[in-house]
């Protein structure tokens, strides 16, 4: 990835477009937008080299608000549009913004395949566990029993867990963040942006109109320490207000233990985001509220070749010098068996 350095460092405000932001007041999307704008300058990439691509949904309005190149595509197809763009132009820095409906319902297949190809882009899935733009139907991440306009007696659909899906699709980078925890969100965004390969980030996002408080357990002062576990590479899995609790491995399953009383940090599971095999990362995606604290941070970050760079090396992508195209074309036209009639 050849990236030129801009002349003078950019500021977050440089990334704001002239379009009025039109999410509902109080929507979690605002915080994420602000944090992305704060993260970009630090990457040192000129803004004309950055492209934001989205599908359809409230979250997918995102590109309009960024003063970079942007594409608000169609429902579910952001990953496919982004794949084509990045393959054609491996020099660009590509971001995909999608929702739980856009990315996991109609767009599930493209997500799977972009992730396995490890196309170098940063994917932000705004998970508000609802279809916002169409005014409140349950989504593939909505919990069983949820009452919405299309499930007045409670939803019968068992939900997907975005990070489990991503790992099932051979993801090289998987992380989770929370809209309101700005600092940690910033850290995760930066890590994701710098990872070479598909970086898949699930962001818990509050839709205060149709699914308000979906993550209150993780945002409320009173409960957040017991419901959130911040992952740190090489460190044991510890959480709780006084960091008094930890996660231990019980065969292949996680188990909550309280430190002290014969249980020390060394007994705990240590996080290894670089583990060659994704089993540990997968296991961490299985910790769900209310039985477990939910993990935030980088679950997995490993290197693996990116589709578009390998393809680029294989193909002769620099057009021949002016004049030499003709020779190249003639060679192509005359390839195979030819004969001359005179």
């Amino acid at each position: 990835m050849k990236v030129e350095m801009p002349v003078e460092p950019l500021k977050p405000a440089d990334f704001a477009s002239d379009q009025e932001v039109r999410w509902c007041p109080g929507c979690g999307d605002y915080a994420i937008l602000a944090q992305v704008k704060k993260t970009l300058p630090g990457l040192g990439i000129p803004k004309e080299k950055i492209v934001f691509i989205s599908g359809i949904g409230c979250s997918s309005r995102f590109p309009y608000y960024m003063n970079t190149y942007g594409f608000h595509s169609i429902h579910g197809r952001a990953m496919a549009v982004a794949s084509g763009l990045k393959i054609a132009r491996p020099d660009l820095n590509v971001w995909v913004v999608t929702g739980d409906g856009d990315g996991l319902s109609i767009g599930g297949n493209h997500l799977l395949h972009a992730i396995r190809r490890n196309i170098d882009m940063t994917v932000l899935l705004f998970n508000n566990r609802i279809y916002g733009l169409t005014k409140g139907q349950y989504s593939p991440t909505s919990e069983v029993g949820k009452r919405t306009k299309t499930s007045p007696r409670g939803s019968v659909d068992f939900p997907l867990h975005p990070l489990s899906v991503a790992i099932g699709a051979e993801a090289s980078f998987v992380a989770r963040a929370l809209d309101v925890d700005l600092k940690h969100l910033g850290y995760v965004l930066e890590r994701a942006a710098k990872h070479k390969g598909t970086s898949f980030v699930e962001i818990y996002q509050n839709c205060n109109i149709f699914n308000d408080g979906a993550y209150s357990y993780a945002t409320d002062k009173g409960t957040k320490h017991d419901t959130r576990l911040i992952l740190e590479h090489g460190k044991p899995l510890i959480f709780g207000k006084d960091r008094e609790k930890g996660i231990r491995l019980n065969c292949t399953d996680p188990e909550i233990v309280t430190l002290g009383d014969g249980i020390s940090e060394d007994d705990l599971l240590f996080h290894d985001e670089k583990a060659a095999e994704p089993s540990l990362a997968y296991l961490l995606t299985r910790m769900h509220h209310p039985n477990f604290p939910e993990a935030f941070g980088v679950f997995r970050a490993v290197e693996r070749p990116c589709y578009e760079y390998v393809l680029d090396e294989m193909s002769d992508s620099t057009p021949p010098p002016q004049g030499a195209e003709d020779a190249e074309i003639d060679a192509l036209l005359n390839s195979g068996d030819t004969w001359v009639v005179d």
Partner: protein
Amino acid sequence: MATSTAPTSKRTMVERKEHATVTIRFCGDSGDGMQLAGTQFTNSSSIFGNDVATLPDFPAEIRAPAGSLPGVSGFQINFSSHEIHTPGDRVDTMVAMNPAALKTNYKDVVPGGIILVNEDAFSKTNLQKAGLDVSPLEDATLRDYHVYKLPMGKLTTEAASGFGLSNKGVNRCKNFFALGVICWLYERPLAPIESWINSKMGRTPAVADANTATLRAGWNYCDTIELFPHAYRVAKAKIAPGTYRKITGNEATAIGLATAARRAGKELFIGSYPITPATTILETLAAMPQMGVKTFQAEDEIAAMCSTVGAAFAGACAVTSTSGPGLALKGEAMGLAVMTELPMVIVNVQRGGPSTGLPTKTEQSDYLQAMWGRNGECPMPVLAACTPSDCFEMAVEAMRIAVQYMTPVILLTDGYLANGSEPWKIPKSSSLPRFDVVHPTNSNGEAFLPYKRNERGARPWAIPGTKGLEHRIGGLEKQAETGNVNYDPDNHQRMICERADKVAKVADSIPDLKIDGNPDAELLVVGWGSTYGAITTAVERANKRGQKVAHVHLRYLNPMPKNTEDVMKRFKKVIVPEMNMGQLIIKLRSDFLIDAKGINKVQGKPFLVSDIEAAIESALGEG
């Protein structure tokens, strides 16, 4: 390894009858190598100097059970001492490698024609597999034909043994025996075939040598045993001087796209998903990384289409290729391409429908889908190639229009063009159009207007990486000029009209419709796509017979050439042959209010010349 000196006939006394045009068909089990034999015969005939046209016909199954009726594979070649346009209606000489092939094909042979059979294959089991109680070699079935029974199995074994091949390997050479026989019969040179064998099989000399020996054995067998009372000769055709190659429609499409991209000074991106009969376009392009071609085998047609849109936004010459069901899946994303006004080509190789239909058969039933298979007012230029080599020209045209007018363009071909082949006079690159792709590089200090149109109605193609031109596009209605999201009623009307006008303006850049045949005729035959050969031949013959018939062939379906209305209204009667139930005719009748009559055939196979002749006859006969 065998050297490539061809045997010279010992029977110098053999009488050779002159024929102007001959149609041959190889048929046998899909394992019998009939496609290969046919292709090699075609090559040899082309190099010899005939005009040729071919029609491969293979089963939908990969390998249907050996000897079964659905497993029959055929390859037909028409070669001639004058210009020809179709693979021929009826077969003069047929090779049938087994009972199933004989049963399903013999009726296409002209009475008095030659049928060559591999008699070794007429075992009881094989007859049963073909659903035959009695061998057609033994009853009256073939009484109208000259039947030659050759023990090809045995003779091949004799010829191909001794090179160290397994029994199976030896048996596989059979097709070259049949090919040798036919080459003798029609005085084809063996040298091109032998050199092909050496170049393709040279890595395993035993195989190359066994096949060469078998090919020669076939030739020598005829030359020795006086099997045929006489042989035939089809003189060279008067063909424009130049360098030629044989080309199939899909090869021509692929090469045309790669060429067009280079003429635009760009890389070619193709995002595609395999589907019969379009797959070989992707496959051909996949073998061209040296041309700056990037192939992306997407997970499905929707991803293929969307990746193409993404690549176009990125600034590549972008293409996707598919067939009917795939085009249906692309519809929504094609709408996005229209709304974002990005240049790209969508190649649709039509096949038998509806639904999965007849995947390996040809049809012209996607015209309506190509025109209107999208939500909303969603106009796109639509082109259609009319011969295999025309696929090259129309692919270049499609890309030209796409980048000059900033629009997705649909190129329609079909299964018949895709797999059919013809000799192609290779153009010089310098004779091909160059496209003026200008990406804006700055906005001269003013706010950049991504939807400000030029005189063609095209918006600027500003690509990511260009400083100062950062902008956002998408599928919502855009404000004129700024491209911002806009819900204003008048703006919507304006943009709807601007998109339509832009497509209409493409007519400024395309040639007028050319009238073939008799321009003063009463009857006009209007065709499009792969019916070109059959209509041309039928109209030529009709005019020779003294009937007065004109022919126009639409290669630009949307917009149509500017003189189309004039032309249509000049004739008292108009007939429109289509391999569908009447699709283009809807547009012709509606646009020009002419009482055109449809001649429709939906049988998974091309029109015969005689079908068109009959239609002409009856149109002229009426009132």
